[in-house]
């Protein structure tokens, strides 16, 4: 009885083995993939992956979208267990949390092997993904902070063109408030679902316009407790406290909603909201690069990149499939641009598809003025701390000196640790 069972089991295993073996020889390569796009851009991203899967029959991308809040937590745990998917989306400013720990694969050799021409990329975003000369990620987009304005409200207030200086920005915002009753500038300055990141991004951009980075060259100390910082802080505080063109206690979601519903003249945000603004019926707006409020142009920018986690067992076939995927995605960056993001590859920008998209032309050149966040694993904590500190000082209408020395103390303590 027992031996008969054994034979049955053996036969079953044999059959299963044969059918499985037969299947794998015909089946396309399956690539596990995590992304973090749950906002307005998520739908555009999923559509792209779908199109990639449909465009060929050798590779199937199995996507899993993780809520942004938990994304890096989940990813870090998976990387520690060498259990991460074959390719992941990662913000450029997070790379320094991972690269030094050796959990990401250097990509130069595979890029060469796949025949991807790196010179077809914008060099700024590419060089931000290099560590010790090696390329650890490939940028899919840059998403700079830009300025949106409602063209109907501008016309109503009798303003002919986008503000180009700080004085014009304030004057235009005041004109909008007086003549249309709408909010002058909707830019978040209060934590709700998100921290007051726009406030921070504007502060960083204004610093950079004056030639200063937020941290010093080797990221060991704060670099904003100076005249440039004081000017930047004062401008932001004045919008809220002196000219009252930005409402107090405005959080991110409300600022987006206000602009979307035509209740705000000017809105500062990353390019990722362009797509959802376009879908809003009755909203007529323009999008331009962050104005040169202090003489020169500079705008904070993030970048979504593709990175390849180091696996328990290395499978070159999979890595090469990932390269094919990345090549396709970056070449079809004009599809991604529908969400608002700016493609990083000239082969995507120089296409009729990209050029025919409205609004994008207004800020496509913003890429030239973008700068990346400081390259230190402590940046996420500094970013949160700067946001909290700016929010507090603006809310309490602190003078620039107090505001900046408080903030400097907090940041230096984090960096000194």
């Amino acid at each position: 009885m027992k031996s008969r069972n054994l034979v049955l089991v053996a036969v079953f295993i044999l059959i299963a083995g044969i059918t499985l073996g037969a299947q794998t020889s015909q089946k396309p390569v399956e690539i596990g993939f995590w992304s973090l796009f749950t906002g307005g851009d998520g739908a555009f991203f999923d559509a792209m992956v779908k199109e990639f899967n449909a465009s060929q029959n050798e590779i199937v991308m199995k996507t899993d979208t993780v809520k942004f809040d938990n994304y890096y937590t989940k990813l870090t745990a998976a990387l520690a267990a060498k259990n991460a998917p074959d390719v992941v989306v990662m913000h450029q400013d997070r790379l320094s949390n991972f690269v030094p720990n050796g959990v990401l694969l250097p990509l130069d050799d595979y890029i060469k092997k796949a025949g991807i021409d790196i010179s077809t990329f914008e060099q700024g975003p590419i060089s931000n993904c290099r560590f010790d000369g090696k390329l650890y990620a490939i940028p899919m987009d840059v998403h700079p902070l830009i300025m949106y304005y409602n063209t109907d409200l501008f016309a109503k207030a009798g303003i002919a063109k986008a503000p180009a200086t700080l004085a014009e920005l304030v004057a235009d915002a005041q004109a909008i408030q007086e003549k249309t009753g709408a909010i002058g500038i909707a830019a978040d300055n209060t934590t709700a679902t998100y921290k007051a990141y726009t406030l921070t991004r504007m502060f960083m951009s204004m610093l950079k316009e004056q030639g200063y980075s937020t941290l010093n060259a080797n990221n060991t100390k704060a670099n904003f407790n100076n005249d440039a910082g004081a000017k930047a802080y004062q401008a932001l505080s004045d919008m809220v406290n002196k000219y009252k063109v930005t409402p107090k206690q405005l959080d991110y979601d409300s600022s987006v909603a206000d602009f979307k519903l035509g209740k705000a003249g000017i809105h500062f945000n990353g390019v990722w909201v362009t797509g959802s603004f376009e879908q809003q019926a009755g909203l007529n707006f323009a999008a331009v690069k962050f104005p040169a409020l202090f003489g020169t142009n500079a705008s904070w920018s993030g970048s979504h990149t593709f990175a390849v986690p180091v696996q328990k067992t290395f499978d070159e076939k999979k890595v090469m499939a990932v390269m094919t995927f990345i090549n396709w995605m970056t070449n079809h960056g004009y599809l991604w641009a529908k969400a608002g993001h700016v493609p990083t590859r000239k082969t995507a920008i120089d296409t009729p598809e990209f050029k025919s998209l409205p609004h994008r032309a207004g800020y496509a050149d913003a890429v030239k003025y973008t700068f990346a966040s400081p390259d230190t694993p402590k940046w996420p904590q500094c970013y949160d701390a700067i946001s909290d500190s700016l929010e507090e000082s603006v809310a309490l209408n602190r003078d620039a000196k107090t505001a900046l020395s408080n903030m400097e103390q907090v940041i230096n303590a984090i960096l000194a640790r």
Partner: protein
Amino acid sequence: MQHRNRYVARDIAIFSAPYLIVYFAFLVFPVIYGIYLSFFDWNILSTKKFIGFKNFMEAFGDPKFLASFGHTCQFVLLSTPTIIIIGFLLALIAVRPTKSGKAAETVFFLPYILSTTVVGTLWAWLFQKNFGLFNQILAQFGFKPIGWLTDPRYAMVSIVGATIWWTAGFNMILFSAAIKQIPDEIYDSARIDGAGRLATLTKITIPLLKDTTLLVVILQLIASFKVFGQAYVMTGGGPYATTEVLVQYVYKTGFSYFRLGYASAMSILLFMVILIISGFQFILGKETK
């Protein structure tokens, strides 16, 4: 006989094994591992570096730790008495032997079965400044909108309010179960002696609920010290970190800034505080017996 005992022991082992395995794997092991981790510098991806008590020393000099612990204490002081008293008052309504009493018990308990995220999101919408229900009502009476969650004066109170709605039902169940166990004869004799409603409440019900009250106070204190989810969902710790509670800082330190050792050390400090307070209460409760 001995044979049978062996079977009983085996059955006990079999039936409790699923629970015990889960209990050890997801509670006992993580607690011990957390204590172990608190002596290390570790970012999950790096190798652990033993640093002795440095994490604990850092906490005492970390203004953010002290501030967020202060916010937790603020929440504890505001929420513990209110949730207990409201739970007790709800219990008085729920124990009435009428149909409406039964219905009330169910209704009051219902919010407790909701998850943190649901409660947080729901109340975040109700409190929303521009279109939330509460400000819509205020607008009807000609008042200006209030930044329930964005004004530092109201944000913590709003979180406490949502927490009351969410968890008072649990205390109500404990109280009403205890009230139902008080023998009717005591109330009958009190009535015969001419005791009014208030006298019955203060002289009979409340004194006889002493044990339950002690339990409720300890459970509520522990729950309040652990506050995180609803605050995180409703305010994200804002405005400017004024509602950032300790567990949120622990979470951020561990899983956003990847300092697992320091995060563990801070949670152990919180554990010590809870332990000391509950121990103190326990002794206090025994002495007055």
